[in-house]
């Protein structure tokens, strides 16, 4: 199925210029592995970066630098080159199955097959927290086929990248490779599609807010405490 929902252009641009935080960058880079169209867009942005670099004024760099540089070329690399993708895949994986996690996400979890990861359970959800630096919180979420996430809002921006299965909310139906972006105005109760567990990577800036009956109660409660 081809990808229907892409990250906003400004997010791709922040990734290309290098200002996007690590958590969102993992999500965008993983989307890029699944989306040739956005790879082309980022490639075009990087070409702008290249042209702007070329047009920069040259800083003073004396001849000593070139001499040093040339002698360093034969230095052994201090850090071994990263393992080729094909080498770090376990033999248990069936190639091309929808459970397969692309890079760079695979490097953030303990394995390449989503079925065998160390999931934690919270109500009807399984989750894994990903270690990233910066403000954003990155997680993997797994919802059983047909499962629902209770109606909620967000106190900050949220990005969701679907990796397996699919889900729907009022804004659309999302499948592998699709990126849903939510701002604080969105309230939704996503429902996983039947047939296959829905696995997503999520990045949140802020917290989830329970709504409906809980939210007014929460507000009322906060009002009295003040």
């Amino acid at each position, binding site marked *: 199925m081809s990808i229907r929902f892409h990250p906003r252009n400004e997010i791709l641009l922040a990734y290309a210029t290098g200002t996007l935080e690590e958590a969102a960058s993992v999500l965008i880079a993983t989307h890029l592995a699944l989306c040739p169209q956005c790879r082309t867009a980022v490639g075009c942005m990087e070409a702008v970066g*290249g*042209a702007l670099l070329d047009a920069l004024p040259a800083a003073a760099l004396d001849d000593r630098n070139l001499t040093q540089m040339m002698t360093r070329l034969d230095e052994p690399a201090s850090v071994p080159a990263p393992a080729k993708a094909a080498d770090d895949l376990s033999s248990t994986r069936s190639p091309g199955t929808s459970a397969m996690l692309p890079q760079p996400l695979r490097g953030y979890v303990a394995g390449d097959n989503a079925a065998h990861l160390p999931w934690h359970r919270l109500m009807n959800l399984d989750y894994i927290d990903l270690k990233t630096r910066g403000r954003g919180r990155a997680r993997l979420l797994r919802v059983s086929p047909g499962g629902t996430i209770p109606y909620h809002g967000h106190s900050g921006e949220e990005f969701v990248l679907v990796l397996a299965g699919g889900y729907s909310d009022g804004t659309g139906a999302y499948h592998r490779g699709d990126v849903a972006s939510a701002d604080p105005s969105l309230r939704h109760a996503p429902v996983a599609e039947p047939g296959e567990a829905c696995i997503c990577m999520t990045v949140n800036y802020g917290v989830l807010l329970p709504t409906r009956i809980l939210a007014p109660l929460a507000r009322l409660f906060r009002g009295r405490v003040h």
Partner: protein
Amino acid sequence: MTALMIAVAAHADKKAFARLFLHYGPRVKTYLMRQGASESNVEELVQETFLVVWRKAAMFDGGKASAGTWIFTIARNLRIDALRKTRRPEFDPADPALVPEPEPAPDRVLEAGEAEVRVRAALAQLPHDQAIALRLAFLEDKSHSEIAAQLSLPLGTVKSRLRLAMQRVRAILEES
């Protein structure tokens, strides 16, 4: 310059590498200084950048990127690691999970050299305010809201200038 990079990629040509260093080294130094590198370690970072250019040369694809673009991405990644102390997550072109490009129609493939000329032409034609926004975004490690603050503009205006600028560059790149 792209021909020099191809020579480095194809047969580890040290003379070609030296010429690339002489042209791009001073520009990478300017880039890293603007990104916040200190005078005391910027030359070390320039050398680190070119050490990666040398070691990863085999991955350079002259059909996809120009030498300038390739060196820009390496310098950008290095300064994220070195100056921000955070990681730069990237997809792996050799990942079996990667969804490949559909085969492009032959008349739509632009040589990197041609693409480079077109990107430069597109940048030269941009309205001044769009060009400024692009330069701040790419060269000064500024988020869109920091650019808005610096130019005393609403965030939405900065975002739309950047969007329009990129649209124009893409349109010129995709012209047949």
